[in-house]
């Protein structure tokens, strides 16, 4: 019996990507919970930075819905400008970034701006925010998003946040610094990237999900790692901590309410 949600599993998988010496560009939603979970478990020394101008070394004292919430400033170590935070990123001081996306392609490029492309907009999404910068400049990058066929495309129609472009050494060719995405955590499994082709490869499958289900929900012929694992489920401690930081289940239980 599964006593956790797929969002909780995604948080746990995200937190496992965080090392104790990481400087993490946190973002919001599931990545924020992943950071807080990591802080309370295996990465107590990790540092979290937020683009509105915040650096923290302890989780906030209350549930967060945005990075600008008052509890995220209370107890911070540094509150400053976006310029200072983004400078840390561009200067190579950020070891790990998290981003989400509406569409991703097999080379890890994300579209969060124009579904259909800029000249032929079908859906106007919010845009980059800091996502494109994080994808371009952080040393390691983890993508977190839902696994659906309409979101996992052979080729995105617009690149908001660059992954590996059209593969191979594209990043070097266009002049990007960061190493590009190292993992895509979805609600069905975890995908990583081939060292040479830079194409996405299925690496692990969440408990209760089949490889077939994942293939059906991917818009191209997804390659499989030679030894696909089952994703390790959350422990009781991990779930307790996640629920402490998301007490109303807003992010991880799909309960869109504050009451």
């Amino acid at each position, binding site marked *: 019996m599964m006593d956790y949600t797929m969002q909780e599993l995604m948080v746990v998988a995200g937190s496992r990507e965080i090392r104790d010496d990481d400087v993490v560009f946190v973002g919001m939603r599931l990545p924020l919970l992943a950071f807080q979970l990591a802080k309370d478990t295996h990465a107590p020394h990790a540092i979290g930075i937020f683009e509105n101008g915040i650096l923290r070394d302890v989780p906030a*004292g209350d549930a967060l819905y945005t*990075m*600008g919430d008052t509890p995220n400033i209370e107890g911070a170590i540094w509150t400053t400008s976006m310029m200072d935070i983004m400078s840390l990123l*561009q200067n190579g001081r950020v070891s790990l970034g998290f981003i989400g996306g509406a569409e991703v392609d097999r080379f890890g490029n994300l579209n969060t701006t124009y579904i259909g492309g800029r000249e032929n907009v079908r859906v106007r*999404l919010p*845009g980059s925010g800091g996502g494109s910068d994080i994808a371009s400049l952080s040393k390691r990058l983890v993508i977190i998003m839902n696994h659906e066929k309409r979101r996992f495309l052979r080729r995105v129609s617009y690149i908001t946040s660059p992954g590996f472009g059209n593969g191979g050494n594209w990043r070097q060719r266009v002049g990007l610094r960061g190493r590009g995405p190292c993992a895509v955590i979805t609600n069905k499994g975890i995908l990583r990237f081939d060292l040479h082709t830079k194409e996405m490869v299925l690496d692990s499958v969440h408990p209760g999900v089949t490889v077939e289900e994942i293939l059906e929900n991917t818009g191209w012929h997804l390659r499989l790692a030679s030894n696909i694992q089952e994703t390790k489920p959350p422990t009781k401690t991990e779930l307790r901590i996640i629920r402490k930081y998301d007490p109303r289940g807003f992010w991880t239980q799909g309960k869109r309410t504050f009451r």
Partner: protein
Amino acid sequence: MEQKIYSMKEAVSQFIEDGDSVAMGTALEAAIPFAVGHEIIRQGKRDLTLIGPISDMLFDQLIGSGCVKKVVAAWVGNVIMGVGYNMRRAVEVGVPRKIEAEDYTNLTISLALYAGAMGIPFVPTKSLLGTGMMGGKQPFKEMECPYTKERLALVPPLKPDVAIVQVQRADEEGNTHFWGGSGVTKEAALAARKVIVVVEEVVEKKVIRNDPNRTIVPGFLVNAVVPEPWGAHPSPVQGYYNRDHEKYMSYHNESRDRDGYLKWLEKWVFGVKDRKEYLKLVGEEKTKSLLVKRHRKSIPVDFGF
């Protein structure tokens, strides 16, 4: 000394003109100048260019009210809920009017405003390369670095006609204190032609002089100081009130279609004549629940000699 204290009505009427470019929401999800935005809507300002890093609901409201010609931003939507439906309707089907979008990232809009503040015609960056934001009508160029030979994207300056600076406190001359994450607030103010400061409290000049490192904008750049308590609601102002999350959720649901948005607008903007009436509509029970309960006071430092 020039008189700089204005009511919200006067300040918007006098310092924001049709066609102006206006930087707002410079501290991202906190201290969003909703009271300014609603007064802009009530006064029917037109053809504005909105400039901001991310925009949590406010840009969407101004777009849906037909005030906006162009959006220059890194993100436009509703942070906890996702898309902004007015932004979608304007870009996708031209309702209530077609708008242009110039798409930045948070780093590059910082750099653009900073270039504006520094008085230089561009700043190079290692972001943007390889993305859809290069090319087309976008303002960025590409060049080879004359030192390192690496590829660079160039970001030209943004110099808003008006910067709206929403803060905790200022004195009568516009010397302005802010605390919390400041986003691009200082950069926008230093880059802008006119500055409107909206404060929770007007304080004596002594309060500023006793902590000049807390100053984010010096008064000589400020045109108007508008005392407007709760002017940022439902966004938070550190030390004054917390975020009213529910309002973002209900707005998301209510603005899903055009009729729903117009109803929201009628109730929350046109249905009130100013911020005081708006706050009555919010209700005292709600505002009370948002007040600071867990205080954390800074420890004084000595500026003496």
